[in-house]
């Protein structure tokens, strides 16, 4: 078993915290691991990535070869596109759909998300929406950790232990926010996939998820949503245009 993950984002978004959680979970699980990261100039708001590899056998390269990556995990949607040529044919993308716009030529967001949604093995979560609900916009990185957790080789407890460890220094409140962010991410990722697996278009699924109250998310409600949207073509737009969030149980 070997897993190769590229963590992607923008300097300041907390990629290295994401790496910390996986590194320590890998060490606990008795895996070998290597994790190459970016320090220096790019950390000032530039594109940053980290190559993270864990395995039950010795790992050679710190860098992941093209075509050998199992997952691109992005805290920012545009950043996925910088690295998806590293993915194996059956590799996964787990991404935030919340754009971080600090450049003048940032693409139109819905075009960008449509392009991403065409990738079959994808999990899309609105990290901005979920982190805000968890209590702090800065916890978007932990939302993405949660969103991956069904695809990796660690249990919820193994990961949460290190989410807590990472923020312990900053006090109980911050720990609680990040725990929640992780759990919301986990639930949102599963819900998104359940929608897509029940036949909903990934772009629409991502849009719908960004309007659902995170505390109500549960996969058993997904199929009913697909049915509902099929019967009522205008429903999604109505929800997107309304100012308030809906329960996963139904509008």
């Amino acid at each position: 078993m070997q897993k190769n993950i590229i963590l992607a984002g923008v300097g300041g978004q907390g990629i290295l915290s994401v790496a910390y959680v996986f590194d320590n979970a890998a060490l606990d699980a008795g895996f070998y691991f290597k994790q190459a990261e970016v320090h220096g100039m790019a950390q000032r708001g530039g594109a940053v990535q980290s190559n993270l590899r864990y395995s039950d056998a010795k790992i050679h390269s710190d860098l992941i070869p093209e075509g050998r990556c199992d997952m691109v995990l992005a805290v920012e949607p545009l950043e996925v596109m910088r690295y998806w040529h590293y993915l194996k044919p059956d590799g996964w993308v787990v991404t935030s759909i919340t754009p971080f716009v600090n450049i003048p030529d940032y693409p139109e967001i819905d075009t960008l998300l449509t392009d991403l949604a065409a990738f079959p093995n994808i999990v899309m979560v609105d990290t901005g929406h979920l982190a805000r609900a968890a209590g702090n916009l800065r916890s978007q990185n932990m939302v993405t950790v949660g969103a991956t957790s069904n695809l990796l080789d660690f249990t919820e407890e193994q990961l949460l232990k290190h989410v807590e460890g990472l923020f312990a220094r900053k006090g109980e409140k911050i720990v609680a926010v990040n725990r929640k962010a992780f759990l919301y991410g986990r639930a949102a990722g599963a819900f998104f996939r359940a929608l897509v697996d029940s036949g909903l278009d990934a772009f629409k699924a991502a849009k719908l998820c960004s309007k659902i109250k995170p505390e109500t998310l549960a996969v058993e409600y997904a199929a009913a949503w697909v049915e509902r949207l099929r019967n009522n073509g205008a429903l999604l737009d109505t929800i997107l245009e309304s100012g308030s969030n809906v329960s996963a149980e139904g509008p």
Partner: protein
Amino acid sequence: MSKEILLGDEAIGLGAIHAGISGVYGYPGTPSTEIFEFIERKTKKNGDVHAFWSTNEKVAYEEALGMSWAGKRVLVCMKHVGLNVAADAFMNSAVTGTNGGLVLAVADDPGMHSSQNEQDSRYFAQFALIPCFEPKNQQEGYDMMLEAFELSEALEIPVMVRLITRIAHSRSSVDTVEALPQNPLNPSKEIKRWTLLPNNARVQYKHLTEKQPELLKRSENSVHNELELRGTRGVISCGLVENYLRENLDEDHDLSILSIRQYPIPAEKVRTLVEHVDELLILEDGYPLVENTVRGLFGLIGTEVKGRMTGELPRTGELNPDLVRGALGLPKIEAAHSPSTNLALRPPSLCKGCPHTDSFKALNDALNTFEDPQVFSDIGCYTLAALPPLEAVHSCVAMGASIGMAAGAAHAGYSPAVAAIGDSTFSHGGITPMLSAVQQNVNLNVLILDNDTVGMTGTQRSMSTGRALDDIVHGTGIDPEHVRIILPLPKHHDQNVKIMREELAHDGPSVIIARRACIESIKGH
């Protein structure tokens, strides 16, 4: 024995602590900074290791040499271009030799992730006639530190440990051993060896050359230089590039491989390999040092030598598993997606609220009466002002070069000659050209961006900020009327432009200090 998750830099730092160092010296510089910071953090509580950033790499190296003279083990660390600054002390320390073990950890930056060039420090080791270790992973980095100190003391010679960005900033778990005790104070009394007057220097230099056969012997026998003969296609890999090679090979491959991680180059092992193979691919990150050495001027008879000079690998830039795969002639691995084209780039930029933004907005306006004014600048966060939207500075060469270059341009008749330099860069390399310009009464304007910290490398302590900076500037003998202090804030914009214009109009040296703390450093404290 315990296990820790460590960056390559941190593994070097921990290795040095466990080798019993009494001090660490350095000046920040990506990708070396975390070596010093790790030692500083780890030893703070006991306070038994001297750890205080130096003004520049030359100072750091000289301090380290002094500690070695006193009989203690010492680590000095810097980035590759830092060794240019320390080169005078470095080269001569090989001639004096050392007393307590002295190890230089220098981090190169192939691919120039955060640097002006990708010079290869192995040439410096060869130039100074000293041994060099080049670890392939974090564990070996840790282990090599203990060896490097032993070697330094056994042969009374400085030892280099060469890192590159990819190992410096990559994490893995490392098994560690019990720390050795520090050396007692034992100053060297061998006056002749430390006093490099020509008569002594000749003797010392001869000693240094006489150490070479022993260094070579150690390289030949080193466990870090592994030779495995299989088929008639050969590969030499240096340092961590071996990992990229192994990544692409199965256990039952038929290549003959020499992995070099200790220098001088183990000539006998290279010869054995060359005699065994018909073609030889050389893989090294940095310059083609081993490649050019092995090929020589005219090539080898009977063995084709391939590498960066023959197009199998690019001449410049960092290697990776894919480039090595291509050089081995293996097919590309199928991927889920093709590379994106025309993707919007996301270059680094100044932080929101950064004081430099306000300083350069004012400078841009102050200069708008000149036609296409060029501003000499330097290295730090403020270099990002070269990019849009500010596009305020037009050079970045070497620490302190802004002032020297502005002076030279002024001598040539260029006006306005403006230099923009950060506070830490000023203490590193700006004081001497400033003194020179004032003493020559050059017509130049120096903008010192005093943000109270070394911003670019992670907000380390700056040596010349606030009062200390003002005193240094006045100490050059400059007319105090032409030393102005401004507060770079949007609300002071007009006033700051006015002050800058006044000083631009002055015929003679002037200094404007733009003083406001870096946002990141305020957050951190």
